[in-house]
């Protein structure tokens, strides 16, 4: 049947972005491996975790990763991240060119190689010259414009899967709820459904070779992985929403927080917040005198009873574009170049994350 042959050809050709996309799904055991690789004495545990997929060609890597039960990450061929440099040194990670090591994808503007003052950074942009002759504000605007172009170029070239994986790691590392990626999730779910239907249709065919069976198993594994990532993403958001339910429902935060949630999430936050408040009232607050019943007391030295997002949490981030000068809490500026990795408080780089110019790692 020509329909089944089409499906078969699609899977074998690797033209479908969800099926067997080597650039997006090969790589080291996911975010759980990032923890040990970052620890101080990590030599023991990091080589253990990293060697699971070091230098392995794609099909073997997939089998090994799946048995380890690790979720997939799109980070290159398994070299453990050397990053986590302290914020006081503009320390560009030198093995950056393997971070986005796509087998098929050469010469991509995303493979940022963070360099020193000379030669690194945006092409054709002479920092020295610019800082001497222009105002800092002008330089920043120029860099801002270029950064936005970079972001847009990247938007168009990336596959949905890569975007989802990045959104997933960002959501897991950020202490605050990030803006929702509704359409992205929708298209990924569509792809999953389509692929599952295709495989089911193929199953019904009579003339299946051994190779066909093997191929279908790989495709289904891929689908399971994507379902895991989607579920984990939604779970991470849900955890944060439940934790910050009172904060989200407070009046002064409405304008900021409500656009970041989908309608379903907002409804859940309201229901959950209502239940929690009811519980507190019934067990504790109603037994106190009238004046002590509020939850929004401002007592010095005691944290607010409405849990606020912990924006001073330190996060590692990887700069995808040149971000220019960032204002640090003590007032000084700090230059962030494309491809470099730093450790800073979430508060200082939050605006960059919302503009998609950096990603959390």
């Amino acid at each position, binding site marked *: 049947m020509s329909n089944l042959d089409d499906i078969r050809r699609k899977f074998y050709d690797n033209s479908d972005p969800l099926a067997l996309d080597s650039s997006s799904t090969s790589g080291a055991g996911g975010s759980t491996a990032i923890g*040990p690789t970052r*620890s*101080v*004495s990590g030599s*023991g*545990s990091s080589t*253990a*975790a990293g060697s699971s997929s070091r230098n392995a060609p794609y099909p073997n890597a997939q089998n*090994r990763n799946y*048995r*380890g039960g690790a979720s997939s990450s799109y980070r290159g061929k398994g070299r453990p991240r050397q990053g986590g440099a302290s914020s006081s040194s503009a320390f560009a990670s030198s093995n950056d060119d393997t971070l986005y090591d796509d087998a098929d994808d050469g010469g991509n503007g995303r493979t940022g190689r963070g360099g020193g003052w000379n030669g690194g950074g945006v092409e054709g942009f002479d920092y020295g010259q610019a800082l001497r002759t222009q105002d800092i504000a002008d330089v920043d605007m120029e860099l801002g414009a270029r950064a936005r172009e970079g972001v847009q170029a990247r938007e168009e070239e990336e596959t949905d899967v890569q975007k989802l994986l990045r959104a997933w790691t960002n959501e897991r590392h950020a202490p605050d709820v990030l803006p929702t990626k509704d359409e992205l999730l929708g298209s990924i779910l569509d792809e999953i459904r389509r692929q599952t239907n295709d495989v089911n249709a193929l199953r019904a065919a009579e003339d299946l070779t051994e190779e066909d069976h093997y191929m279908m198993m790989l495709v289904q594994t891929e689908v399971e992985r994507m379902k895991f990532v989607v579920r984990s993403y939604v779970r991470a958001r849900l955890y944060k929403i439940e934790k910050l339910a009172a904060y989200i429902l407070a009046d002064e935060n409405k304008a900021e927080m409500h656009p970041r949630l989908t309608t379903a999430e907002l409804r859940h936050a309201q229901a959950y917040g209502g239940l929690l408040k009811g519980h507190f009232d019934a067990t504790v607050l109603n037994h106190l005198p009238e004046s002590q019943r509020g939850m929004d007391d401002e007592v*010095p*030295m*005691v*944290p*607010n*009873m409405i*849990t*606020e997002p*912990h924006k001073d*949490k330190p996060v590692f981030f990887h700069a995808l574009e040149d971000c220019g000068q960032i204002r640090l809490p003590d007032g000084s500026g700090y230059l962030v170049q494309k491809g470099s990795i730093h450790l800073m408080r979430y508060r200082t780089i939050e605006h960059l994350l919302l503009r998609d110019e950096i990603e959390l790692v």
Partner: protein
Amino acid sequence: MENDYYSIDAILAENQKVPCAFKVDIPDLGYLDGGSEKDIKASSKSQLPFWLTPVLLLSDFADCILPPPFSQRVRNALNAEATSVKLSSLVGSGGLWYGFGRMIVHVIEEPYAKDLTNVLVKTFKDRLVDIMDQAQHFGALGNHAGGGGDGQKGEDFREGLDGTERELFALAQASAKRTKQWYESSDKTRR
């Protein structure tokens, strides 16, 4: 253990006694001291839990001094060799020395706050190497009771870990164990 009202870690860390001296008379609250007095007299010393102190300090009812876990004597010992100090004997076996230190840092003024912060950071850095080393060693070898030559020293160190360090130790040990299991399982099936 962020700045969260509901954080259990923060509540546990605050559960330490701090010596305070009252500045005014407080009628009818003599039972706080565990004594038999009816009132608290001015300039009488007592040990109060740390979570009471911000209110007392702000309303100027009492004065507090640096609690014993962070005294000069302890600092000297930490300076000499951080790994040999038993943090668990300073704050009790379930106590959180680092957590308590962080809470104090928010309350006291510069430059003492900066000093204390540096002490905390340096101690943590020095002890971390030993914690991780011991965790990997025991996790990878399975259930070796002595673990080589320095069994006694290792045990002493492990007893002296405070709450945060104990958690780290447990996590690292579990992680090493699971890695080892994973290695062995994949070897078998490859053959």
